[in-house]
């Protein structure tokens, strides 16, 4: 392979004149993590609400939850980002749309919102599966004790459900981190975008992508170890460790 490797490139100054290439990659890592964490919080809250709605004893609420999940699952993430970024400001009243377009860091907010909604549909699936995996008697017992329906969810069903679905939630969190790379299409300078920029300016293609790959693997390992620890701490006594289910992801 006649490719000129130059690992010293990371310590050369990037075209912004201030940071070295390595520093630009680390800045990108920061944006990746920031986007992923904000989107994850949003996905957890929305996903839990929708997941609960889909197990509620009201058919119209269940159907509404189903529609929500179908909507956000069946449109590619990239298209969803374009809809939030390019289409939404045009559909709003002119002043508001213009304000949205001129917002500093608009691509960051858009990435968080679109990733958040996209992931919330997947979280909702998991929350629903977790609640459904509990014995029916738990709900009945809660209600029979005089708890209201929200109390039954809050004190009986959800605490158990979350502990059961922690492993699939881990892989969803890893997915959010990886999916944040899609935001480079709307101009977010996250890790993959920085690697791409480094490749364009320095022509050291493989060094740039190798570095990005290693950073992603490191993030992956840290998250996985952290979640393993959390899983051990919160494992429901008496349950066999939840076997990994073959769920299609990407």
């Amino acid at each position, binding site marked *: 392979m006649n490719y000129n490797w130059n690992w010293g490139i990371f310590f050369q100054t990037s075209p912004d004149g201030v940071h070295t290439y390595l520093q630009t990659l680390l800045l990108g890592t920061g944006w990746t993590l920031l986007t992923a964490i904000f989107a994850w919080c949003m996905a957890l809250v929305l996903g839990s609400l929708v997941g609960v709605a889909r197990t509620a004893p009201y058919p119209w609420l269940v159907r509404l939850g189903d529609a929500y999940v179908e909507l956000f699952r069946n449109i590619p993430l990239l298209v969803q980002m374009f809809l939030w970024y*390019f289409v939404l400001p045009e*559909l709003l009243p002119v002043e508001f749309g213009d304000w949205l377009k001129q917002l500093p860091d608009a691509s960051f907010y858009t990435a968080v919102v679109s990733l958040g909604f996209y992931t919330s549909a997947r979280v909702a699936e998991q929350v629903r599966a977790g609640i459904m995996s509990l014995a029916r008697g738990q709900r009945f017992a809660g209600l029979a004790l005089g708890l209201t329906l929200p109390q039954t969810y809050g004190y009986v069903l959800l605490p158990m459900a979350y502990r059961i679905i922690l492993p699939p939630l881990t892989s969803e969190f890893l997915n959010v981190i*990886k999916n944040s790379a899609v935001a480079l299409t709307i101009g977010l300078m996250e890790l993959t975008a920085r690697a791409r920029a480094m490749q364009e300016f320095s022509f050291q293609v493989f060094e740039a*992508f190798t570095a990005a790959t290693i950073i992603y693997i490191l993030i992956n390992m840290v998250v996985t170890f952290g979640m393993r620890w959390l899983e051990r701490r919160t494992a429901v006594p008496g349950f066999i460790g939840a076997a990994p*289910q073959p769920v*299609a992801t990407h």
Partner: protein
Amino acid sequence: MFSNFDFDVIIRSLPYLFIDGMSFTLLLTAFAASGGIIFGTLLALMRLSGFAPLSLPAAGYVNLMRSVPLVLMIFWFYFLVPYIGQWITGAPRPIQVGAFLSSLVTFTLFEAAYYCEIMRAGIQSIPRGQVAAAQALGMNYAQTMGYIVLPQALRNMLPVLLTQTIILFQDTSLVYVLSITDFLGAASKVAQRDGRLVEMYLFAALVYFVISFVVSRLVRHLQTRVAIIR
């Protein structure tokens, strides 16, 4: 809000969107899914072989592919495939490969990691007694796998494999980052040329939604049909 919604731009660009764009998307999905399932099954067999020189590289490959974003892999292979081509053919300089071949290699190799995990779960769901019975009948490894284990694993996992293929279909939109004219790429080009972002992106979303939704409904229906009654 929809007062100046231009339906005409969609009608005018329909042939371009579907003949140029959608055929690329569907062909890429079909070839990458077939290639990914074959390579993924091989990876799964390697991972389950219990022979470290086979299982460790397969596990490493799968974990590597599953820890990096698809977008990054698309960039990787876009620059790597010419060098691989040079290495295979022994040409003096990196070979220029077309957009289709480059993305086909990317998606096949990337999705194989995901198909591998599905097939691995499928193979592991077959009772051990079946393998023992096949061996007692005098079957060798290839026969045991080919006649006994894999057909059942494939059948058990068919719904999950198809769901993964729907995800692959949606993921192919990411070739946008290489400015390739897939369905979304075509929609995006028309959108930018005519300044009709709202119409084109909404239409693209609608088409992706309808296809994914209908196919996932069919998969759910299939799930009840092919389930092995135990």
